[in-house]
């Protein structure tokens, strides 16, 4: 610890802290312009100059000067004030005073400091810049005439995002922030530069001329896109969201946001939002009253229940619902309808979470990823799937010099910084992990003590792994033996290694196996804290924990423990395990009445033709959604639901953290929060539910699931289980010579993003990517329309040809209208579980 004196008061701080950090700790404010705690200090603007009295008198920048023993600092002497005022005068030489029409006014650091230091006149004068305003770039408007060259946008784009879209161009008086050859922005559009810009040089096009900052009501809530659950603040004016910015330094995102968080909320104001309940009359959906719609639903649920039995009914919820809503939904299905036929998101999501709970006892952790010294990015195209987690990887690698091992079937953005880039045959990641485990055991790189004290199943697991010799791994994955050995050594020798896995990119039925194979690696080296399993949706975790699963009650209790639930719910519960979403859309489906809440199986399940057939044959289809989706259009009854900003509740993020969402708006039209709809439906069904708030539901959840809100961590016991690599790739033949890989896309996530004009405006058209060699041999030109055909169906897409993709593989990212689902096979039911396959395709000229 170091002792220094600031403004007459002594303070002790850690070595390596800056004067600014020490002052902040004491509650002394020092103004800054070029400083941000997330970035490395540069000391460029000099507005934070403070006076040193001892040992060597002078002025130093507080943000870039480290504390030293016995330092005596004064932060607000006349000299300091005078210097700061002069700096402001110099900045104001060419900064235009167009504050009345500047969207930053009200939260502009330069404006605030000019006011604070009373700069009413300027002793200096000079030429004002007259650069053309960039109104061509989407989402972000750049008016560089207002730029003060603090460089924060340049640095956050480089240090955190690793995009480096802009840099300092030119020098001296002519210097400006710009792109190469002054082209418009063509970046990830994360919008981080907007939030960090201290002046009005970078502003949001969505906010342009729509309000003044001080008119906005600020609502701190949780982003509803991916499973990270970033904290953000919505700026609301007269019932419209106009802005979002990252919030809360203690949250997982540390004030950072990605393009979806910054710009993707617009769907909530989409003109096609459902505003009234709809009922099918004479083959057409017509608007009716809530009373009529609800009573009709109840009447027909009852009819099927009485005629065929409760197991002819089923409910599929969405991993976008709040915990409270999922909880009530499954309670309604189980206690109200009387069946365990309940699932969510095609049943994809929870397999990996299940494996984590069983073998690690907690869902993994993301928050401290940036402190790792080795990161294995396993099938995790993070800049597309979870960009904010990608920031942590960038920080670990670029700032912390962590060794990065990228294991992916195609090169990703992070590959450029990778110590090793292992490009393996799609679907063979388990073989790769087993191969690494074998090397570690063989070379005695494992943590014996940890294995003995804190794990079970080592012998059986190592027997399985022993078969994965470097040669066998090479045969299965195509990765060279030396590379596998090097990766194993790098990982095993690291002190704080981490494995990152993006959920939902393995063939169906593989996620839990992949997670277990990764857990084996983490546990034998004694690193149970180093697993980050990133789920797809905002509440994938919650949907699983709250019991939207056919075989488990809330809190992951088996059905045989239903007694306690029966007592609290005051109803008898069915004991028979229910059907999963995959069962429901199976050929032999016996479901007659289906209640879908926020779920669109036509977009989420493979083989949309069969899914549609099952839906058409239903006697009753009730859909609850924000939009008239393809499936809602087929429904008999449609309930208009409220979106994330129109309701209250909690989401559980990928780490198991329960985070609140707060209503920023009142629901559009007659739309109602899912919680209200479900409870009223249940009440009418004869199963009483009455709650005045989400908090009341939460209280009930806590009664049944005591550890609901508790922080989750490794509790000292882990399970090792040997996992064999399954043959997951379909046969490669002359008719289907290419392996289809499925990739994420940062602009989209599920079905809501396509109603956000901001996101659809910047995302490219749906494409299939293929290597230039494959394109050449198939006589395909980049940019043309092609047909991608599998054994199950086909889709028409634009082709993008590049040199990065390995030969023999094509990549389709999850664009809303990619037709990806047409190509995928229905999973097979084998040995009590569903097994999907990676399919092979042919690409032909359209």
């Amino acid at each position: 610890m170091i002792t220094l004196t600031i403004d007459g008061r002594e303070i002790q701080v850690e070595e390596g802290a800056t004067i600014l950090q020490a002052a902040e700790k004491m509650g002394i404010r020092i103004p800054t312009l070029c400083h941000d705690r997330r970035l490395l200090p540069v000391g460029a603007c000099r507005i934070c100059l403070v006076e040193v009295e001892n040992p060597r008198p002078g002025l130093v920048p507080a943000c870039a000067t480290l504390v030293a023993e016995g330092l005596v600092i004064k932060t607000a002497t006349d000299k300091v004030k005078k210097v700061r005022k002069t700096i402001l005068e110099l900045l104001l030489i060419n900064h235009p005073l167009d504050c009345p029409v500047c969207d930053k006014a009200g939260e502009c650091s330069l404006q605030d400091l000019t006011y604070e230091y009373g700069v009413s006149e300027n002793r200096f004068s000079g030429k004002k810049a007259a650069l053309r305003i960039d109104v061509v770039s989407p989402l972000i408007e750049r008016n560089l005439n207002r730029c003060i060259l603090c460089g924060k946008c340049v640095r956050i784009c480089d240090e955190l995002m690793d995009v480096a879209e802009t840099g300092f161009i030119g020098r001296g008086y002519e210097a400006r922030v710009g792109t190469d050859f002054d082209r418009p922005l063509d970046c990830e559009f994360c919008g981080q530069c907007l939030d960090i810009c201290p002046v009005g040089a970078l502003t949001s096009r969505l906010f342009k001329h729509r309000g003044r900052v001080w008119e906005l009501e600020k609502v701190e809530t949780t982003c509803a896109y991916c499973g990270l659950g970033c904290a953000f603040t919505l700026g609301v004016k007269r019932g419209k969201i106009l802005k979002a910015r990252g919030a809360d330094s203690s949250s997982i995102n540390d004030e950072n946001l990605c393009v979806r968080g910054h710009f993707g909320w617009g769907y909530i104001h989409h003109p096609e939002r459902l505003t009234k309940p709809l009922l099918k009359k004479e083959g057409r959906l017509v608007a009716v009253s809530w009373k009529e719609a609800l009573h009709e639903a109840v009447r027909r649920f009852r009819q099927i229940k009485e005629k065929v039995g409760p197991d002819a009914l089923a409910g599929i919820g969405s991993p976008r619902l709040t915990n409270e809503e999922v909880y009530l939904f499954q309670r309604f299905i189980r206690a109200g309808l009387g069946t365990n036929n309940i699932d969510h998101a095609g049943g994809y999501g929870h397999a990996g979470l299940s494996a984590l709970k069983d073998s690690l006892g907690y869902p993994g952790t993301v928050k401290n990823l940036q402190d790792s010294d080795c990161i294995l990015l396993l099938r995790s195209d993070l800049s597309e799937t979870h960009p904010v987690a990608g920031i942590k990887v960038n920080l670990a690698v670029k700032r912390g010099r962590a060794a990065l091992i990228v294991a992916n079937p195609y090169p990703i953005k992070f590959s450029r910084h990778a110590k090793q880039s292992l490009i393996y045959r799609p679907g063979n990641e388990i073989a790769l992990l087993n191969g690494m485990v074998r090397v570690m055991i063989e070379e005695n790189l494992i943590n014996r003590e940890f294995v003995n004290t804190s794990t079970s199943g080592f012998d059986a697991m190592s027997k399985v792994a022993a078969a994965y010799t470097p040669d066998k791994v090479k045969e299965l994955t195509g990765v060279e033996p030396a590379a596998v050995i090097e990766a194993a050594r790098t990982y095993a020798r690291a002190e704080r290694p981490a494995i990152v896995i993006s959920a939902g990119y393995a063939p169906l039925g593989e996620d839990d196996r992949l997670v277990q194979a990764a857990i084996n690696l983490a546990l034998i080296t004694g690193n149970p804290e180093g697993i980050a399993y990133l789920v797809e949706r905002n509440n994938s975790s919650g949907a699983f924990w709250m019991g939207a699963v056919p075989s488990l009650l809330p809190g992951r209790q088996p059905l045989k423990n239903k007694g306690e639930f029966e007592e609290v719910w005051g109803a008898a519960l069915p004991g028979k395990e229910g059907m999963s979403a995959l069962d429901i859309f199976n050929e032999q489906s016996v479901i007659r009445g289906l209640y879908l809440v926020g779920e669109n199986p036509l977009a989420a399940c493979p083989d949309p033709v069969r899914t549609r057939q099952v839906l058409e044959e239903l006697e009753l289809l009730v859909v609850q959604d924000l939009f008239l989706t393809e499936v809602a259009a087929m429904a008999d009854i449609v309930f208009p639901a409220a979106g994330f900003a129109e309701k209250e509740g909690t989401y559980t993020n990928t780490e198991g953290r329960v985070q609140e969402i707060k209503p920023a708006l009142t629901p559009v039209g007659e739309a109602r929060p899912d919680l209200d709809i479900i409870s009223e439906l249940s009440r009418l069904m004869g199963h009483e539910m009455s709650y005045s708030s989400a908090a009341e539901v939460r209280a009930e959840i806590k009664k049944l699931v005591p550890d609901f809100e508790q922080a989750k961590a490794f509790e000292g016991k882990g399970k090792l289980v040997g996992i064999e690599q399954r043959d997951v790739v379909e046969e490669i033949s002359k008719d289907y010579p290419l392996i289809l890989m499925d990739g994420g896309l940062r602009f989209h996530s599920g079905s809501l993003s396509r109603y956000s004009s901001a996101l659809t405006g910047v995302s490219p058209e749906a494409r299939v990517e293929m290597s230039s060699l494959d394109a050449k041999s198939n006589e395909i030109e980049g940019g043309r329309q092609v047909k991608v055909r599998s054994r199950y169906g086909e889709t028409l897409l634009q082709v993008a040809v590049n040199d990065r993709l390995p030969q023999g593989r094509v990549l389709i990212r999850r664009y809303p209208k990619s037709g990806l689902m047409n190509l995928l096979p229905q999973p097979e039911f084998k040995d009590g579980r569903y097994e999907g396959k990676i399919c092979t395709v042919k690409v032909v000229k359209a």
Partner: protein
Amino acid sequence: MLHKEQNLETVLSEYKKEQGSLIPVLQRAQAIDGYLSKPVMSRVAGELGLYESDVYGVATFYTQFRFAPLGENIVKVCHGTACHVSGAEEISDSLCNHLKVEEGETTADGKFTTERVVCLGCCSLAPVVMVNEETYGRLTSDKVKKVLDKY
């Protein structure tokens, strides 16, 4: 063209592994075409593992790099102290108006490139303009136009 590409390849392979080699690479790349084009700079960035914005930022920092092909004739307008007080600004303005270019740009027909320089070392002739290797002194805004007619 092939010859030029090979040249760039040679330069890149020579410097690829060397840290801090951006400026020499840019200098040699410029020597091939006479300027730095967008594809050349993208290629340099890709091969050296740098961001394009970094490469462009460094290149624009130094006056020695050009981003458009040079004209047939280089017109250097002296802005040294003597020329400055004798009206170099007016000479520049007149020249640029006449050629319809900004300072440092090349005319649409590719005939002239204007440049602003600091002292050509013949202050007694101020204000001075140099076209290629030829020096013209005691100019006025009219005279300078006539000078250009010779080319």
